[in-house]
């Protein structure tokens, strides 16, 4: 009788966790429930140009997902940003903000057809979709991956993997009518938006993507913007080269247009040590010329979940106060 009972994935995970112990970066399955907890934390020590040394607890992010039905999943990510800042012997939590990064329900009809409703990461490029500190190689974020568009959207999305197309084409189509869930006061959120993102693994080691978005933002009503982007990631044997390029056109003309891109390389130096190099260019609306940013870094990837990063960046034609200087950070996925 007992052997006839089908196992559930939740219980299988539980069995493994109980057998091997909790592992960083694998989340925690709450016993006897369909609830999983996870998250990440990041802290940095930086000396950026024009400012004193600063120690920051940048983010403390909590994931929570619940799968009450086989085809229904609820997911949330809540992030405590800038929880603590230490600067010139002064400790402050004035910049602390509890952000709702994601809150959505997913209904899976099939591998090719999923419906998401709620607040989600805007599917533009690759970096925005994997921006968590333990997942990326640098503490700083390329400007093109966040400046030209709101990084979150509240609305609906249809997405899936078309396994009948070669090695599997990932697609997402989304729309928003504004009304952002817990809008972050630091961001100019969508008023209305629609867009699409396609991603395709050309080989095991190469992933290509294209993005399109048409949108209007809350603080610039009446100005319609079109964003197109391409992204590519190649990785093999510990080496990685990634790039994202984006162009944003505006109904207000060329002065409101933005464009930019980056190319980043990662090379293993032996053991758990990696060298990182990046060049990026970004031209903000109304700014001539664009800023050129160069970055070199050294990372120590302790394991799948824990990474120590150090980097130095230098800018040319920096008229938009892009951060340049030394950054050290530690990030852990839990």
């Amino acid at each position, binding site marked *: 009788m*007992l*052997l*006839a*009972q*089908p*196992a*559930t*994935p939740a*219980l*299988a*995970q*539980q*069995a*493994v966790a*109980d*057998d*091997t112990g909790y592992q960083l*970066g*694998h*989340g925690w399955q709450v*016993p*006897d429930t369909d609830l*999983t907890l*996870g998250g990440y934390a990041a802290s940095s020590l930086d000396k950026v140009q024009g400012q004193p040394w600063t120690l920051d607890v940048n983010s403390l992010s909590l*994931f929570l*997902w619940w799968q009450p039905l*086989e085809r229904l*999943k609820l*997911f949330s990510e809540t992030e405590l940003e800038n929880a603590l800042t230490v600067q010139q012997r002064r400790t402050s939590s004035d910049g602390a903000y509890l952000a709702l990064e994601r809150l959505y329900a997913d209904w*899976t009809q*099939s*591998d090719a057809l999923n419906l998401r409703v709620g607040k989600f990461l805007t599917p533009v490029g690759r970096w925005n*979709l*994997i921006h*968590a500190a*333990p*997942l990326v190689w640098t503490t700083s974020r390329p400007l093109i991956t966040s400046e030209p568009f709101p990084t979150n959207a509240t609305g609906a999305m249809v997405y899936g*993997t078309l*396994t009948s197309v070669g*090695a*599997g084409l*990932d697609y997402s189509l989304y729309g928003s009518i504004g009304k952002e869930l817990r809008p972050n006061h630091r961001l100019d959120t969508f008023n209305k938006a629609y867009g699409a993102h396609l991603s395709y693994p050309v080989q*095991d*080691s190469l992933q290509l993507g294209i993005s399109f978005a048409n949108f209007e933002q809350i603080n610039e009503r009446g100005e319609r913007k079109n964003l197109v982007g391409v992204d590519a990631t190649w*990785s093999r*044997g*510990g080496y990685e080269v990634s790039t994202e390029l984006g162009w944003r056109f505006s109904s207000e003309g060329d002065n409101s247009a933005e464009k930019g891109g980056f190319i980043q390389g990662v090379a293993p130096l032996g053991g758990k040590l990696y060298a990182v190099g990046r060049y990026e260019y970004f031209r903000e609306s109304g700014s001539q010329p664009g800023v050129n940013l160069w970055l070199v870094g050294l990372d120590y990837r302790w394991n*799948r*979940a824990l990474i120590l990063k150090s980097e130095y960046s230098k800018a040319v034609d920096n008229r938009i106060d892009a951060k340049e200087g030394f950054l050290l950070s530690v990030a852990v*996925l839990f």
Partner: protein
Amino acid sequence: MKLTRGILLLAIAGLHVLAPPSALAADEPMAVVVAEGSRHRVEGLPALAEIYRRKKQYWPDGQHIEPINLPADDPRRQRFSQVVLGMPPDRLDAYWNELYFHGVLPPTVLQSVEAVLRFVSMTPGGIGYVPLCSIDNRVTIALTIDTGGSAAERFSPAACKREQPVR
């Protein structure tokens, strides 16, 4: 009820004590197995890769796929990962981190071949891989992978005797 199932799976997970991995195991032909009587089949290595990358999560009849892995340091897992996914398990860390960030977990890990056989035989939608010569009537072969890394849907019992390494 959940507690009894949990106890059962704990027992399954503990079966590795009875069957430690063999250093020779990596050279054995492998069988990708589903529960006995299941109609689920896998059309070649690319389709199997999509299952083990969690890109394909449903069988054609709508049943949820429950893929099972052996531990990352098991030579059979190493070989399976190399042949099917094109890289060793540790090179997939970044991939699984990205999926985890979106609430998708990697395949469940069980510690022994016997544990895989038991889980697959009891779980509708379950799929695992085991040495070809270790299968029994609890499971059905969905695909075989020979020592050269080629896949086939049919299995000749003679292949087991012919390809089984000398111990």
